[in-house]
């Protein structure tokens, strides 16, 4: 399985390659788009202007293309907003064509209408169906295979059995189905699902899902609150820089199963995160993959990964929670 890491700036490319990343994904939003649409109708799911989460400017894309040429680690560009407006489709198609001229050929897309538009326009590129698209099932993939999906990115909340079944279904189609399958494995385990998250993500306000809330009754005193499970905080879990692998979401224990069900790429989210931490994430994921290669059983793998990466325990925020 290959490591697909988020890239917030071209300055990080070589550092992440040296840490073990096999490929990258990043956003490019031209100035003209920002000027017209700001963060009201963003071009991708990093819906902010005030944080370095996009590859800024076409001149930077050109440098990135040269880096890809030299180091051989491809970069996929994200155009994965959940929807666009009618006037935007031709504009996006033009941006994609321009990116293709610069040497980028693979695009992460979530809006079905954009896929239809690109097909209607005859724009032939490598499409990665975003993990923000919708619920994933075999029949859903039948619908999207008509739109030439090359890689399916599973959303964050899947079981191994469901992923295995979808991958089998696609492989049975041969060239008519998706060829590659990507799963989330580190960071940003959102409490809600990307495809169904319609609230604002912007500079000026936090996420709606993080607004303070309380667990309450439908009617007064209809049910006594259950005791909240005490979650263990142990500062030894963190290194001297305050880093804990998978602090905001982790699927490292699941690599054995992900490989077994046919996952080909592992998504490491973190555009805009602290660069040192991203580098450590990549190194830890690489270590986990090495351990996986040398483990005969799932139990052996998990025992080793816990000893090596989580000697004092993990965050407990599991992408693939064991029953």
């Amino acid at each position: 399985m290959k490591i697909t890491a988020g890239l917030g700036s071209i300055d990080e490319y070589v550092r992440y390659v040296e840490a073990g990343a096999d490929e990258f994904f990043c956003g490019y939003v031209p100035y003209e788009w920002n000027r017209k649409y700001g963060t009201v109708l963003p071009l991708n799911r990093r819906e902010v202007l005030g944080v370095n989460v996009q590859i800024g400017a076409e001149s930077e894309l050109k440098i990135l293309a040269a880096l890809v040429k030299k180091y051989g680690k491809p970069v996929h560009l994200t155009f994965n907003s959940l929807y666009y407006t009618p006037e935007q489709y031709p504009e996006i198609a033009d941006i994609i064509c321009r990116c293709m001229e610069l040497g980028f050929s693979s695009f992460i897309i979530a809006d079905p209408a954009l896929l239809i538009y690109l097909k209607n326009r005859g724009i032939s590129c490598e499409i990665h169906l975003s993990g923000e698209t919708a619920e994933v099932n075999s029949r859903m993939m039948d619908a999207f295979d008509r739109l030439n999906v090359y890689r399916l990115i599973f959303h964050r909340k899947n079981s191994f059995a469901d992923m295995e079944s979808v991958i089998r279904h696609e492989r049975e189609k041969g060239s008519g189905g998706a060829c590659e399958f990507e799963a989330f494995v580190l960071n940003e385990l959102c409490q809600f699902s990307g495809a169904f998250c319609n609230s604002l993500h912007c500079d000026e306000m936090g996420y709606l899902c993080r607004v303070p809330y309380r667990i309450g009754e439908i009617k007064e005193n209809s049910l006594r609150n259950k005791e909240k499970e005490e979650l263990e905080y142990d500062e030894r879990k963190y290194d001297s820089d305050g880093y804990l692998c998978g602090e905001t979401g982790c699927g490292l224990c699941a690599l054995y199963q992900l490989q077994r069900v046919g996952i080909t790429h592992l998504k490491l989210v973190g555009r805009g995160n602290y660069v040192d931490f991203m580098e450590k994430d990549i190194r830890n994921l690489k270590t986990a993959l090495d351990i996986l290669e040398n483990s005969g059983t799932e139990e052996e793998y998990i025992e080793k990964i816990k000893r090596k990466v989580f000697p004092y325990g993990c965050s407990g925020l599991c992408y693939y929670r064991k029953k």
Partner: protein
Amino acid sequence: MSGKRELHGVSMIPFGLVAGFADGQEIRVTELAESGFCFRTVDEIGKVGKFRVCFYDGLRCGEMIGAEDRKNETTYTEVEIGSFEMDARVEDGLGIPVYVYSVFVDQEKYRECARELILRYDKFVRLKLECEDGELAEALTGYPAEKDEWFAEDFEEQKADWFSERKAGNGDIELAVELDRPELYERYLSMKFCDFMGWYWNVNRAEKLGEQLPIPGRIYVGNAFCHLLFPEKKILFKILEKAESEDLEVTITSSYLREFMLESVEKLLDELAEWCKIRKTSLEIAVNDWGMLELLKDRNGFLVPCMGTLLNKRKKDPRMGYKQGDTGLFLENSLNADFYREYLRDMFGIQRYEWESCGYRQEFPEEKNSIHVPFYQTNTSQYCTLYAVCKNGERGRQELPEDCPGYCGEKVFLYPKHLKMVGRYNSLFALDESAVFGMMNMDSWKEQKIDRVVVNLL
């Protein structure tokens, strides 16, 4: 190339805040100072005739705040620079040699914009690092962060607050009510529909609203957001039969389909198609899953697909009033594109679109359109957040619920009163207050190309 002169500026201010052009070439300002800026390129550029630097005007603290101001904020001030000095050097730090240019500018407008942006960016970074989300929003938008501390005691009190004093208009547009959970399925089956509606308005503390609305002519059965709240097959057919006897139209609402559900759903669709065939009728299915659209393709005729709310994407948020930028851009979504609706009609036979009233004006296409009132969904998780809290003690400790005991029958997530939102089952919903008192304003709905109002008081 001349020797290196220093700018002593701020490095790597995001491109969204300061963009640039060297003649026609879009460039990334890698360092910004009052006396100039830097950028880099992979190929050497020769002579530049003119630079254009674009400074973002948003993210202002404490200079608030009318809606019109907010709307106008997210533009850029563009400064053209024809007179400058430029140094170039080659650097290797990125892993390949790149040309780094320092541009020295002596122009008052540029200096003013650069200084102002650097200060604003500095304030923004401090807010991000030092403040809670609410405080940041308060500083930037006037959001009332202190009100985030005010909660209702329970959901019943919250509903009384929302519905008890509302007045509705009159009209004859088609009215429907959503039965979206076991409690409502059972209650509907246990009494005449008109009695059920009386109970429904009362239990939701919306008696006054109920007095002013006619008895609905259609029920929606099923839950768009949680696959576990769909009725058991036996109950579903009982509801269909009772609705038939009461001369009620029915739309069945299906949620997302997990892979393991496909087989059982296919069987159910076959049985529903057979049910329709015997009665020489058809049933609408509000679809919230692309796989479901595929399944229905083979059963068109008896089962008529409508595009459900989970597939009909749009930005929705109870804090929309504080959003900066041209919020008029929210008017349309992908379904306003003719090519998209044509595809949906030709490929899947979509004949109706389900929309939600979400607190701002929407432009609906020339189609059959239903509007769901007065709540709109903002977030949904297939791994139920309420289940996670009740079972594992924390909302982030999630898993796919199996044998769910139905925590949502007793519990909700309460949110600060001023936001008028609630966490119900696996989703967050917010209230569109204007849709409470405007629920049956037929002229207004008709004007907006809506021909059906679907009520769900959660």
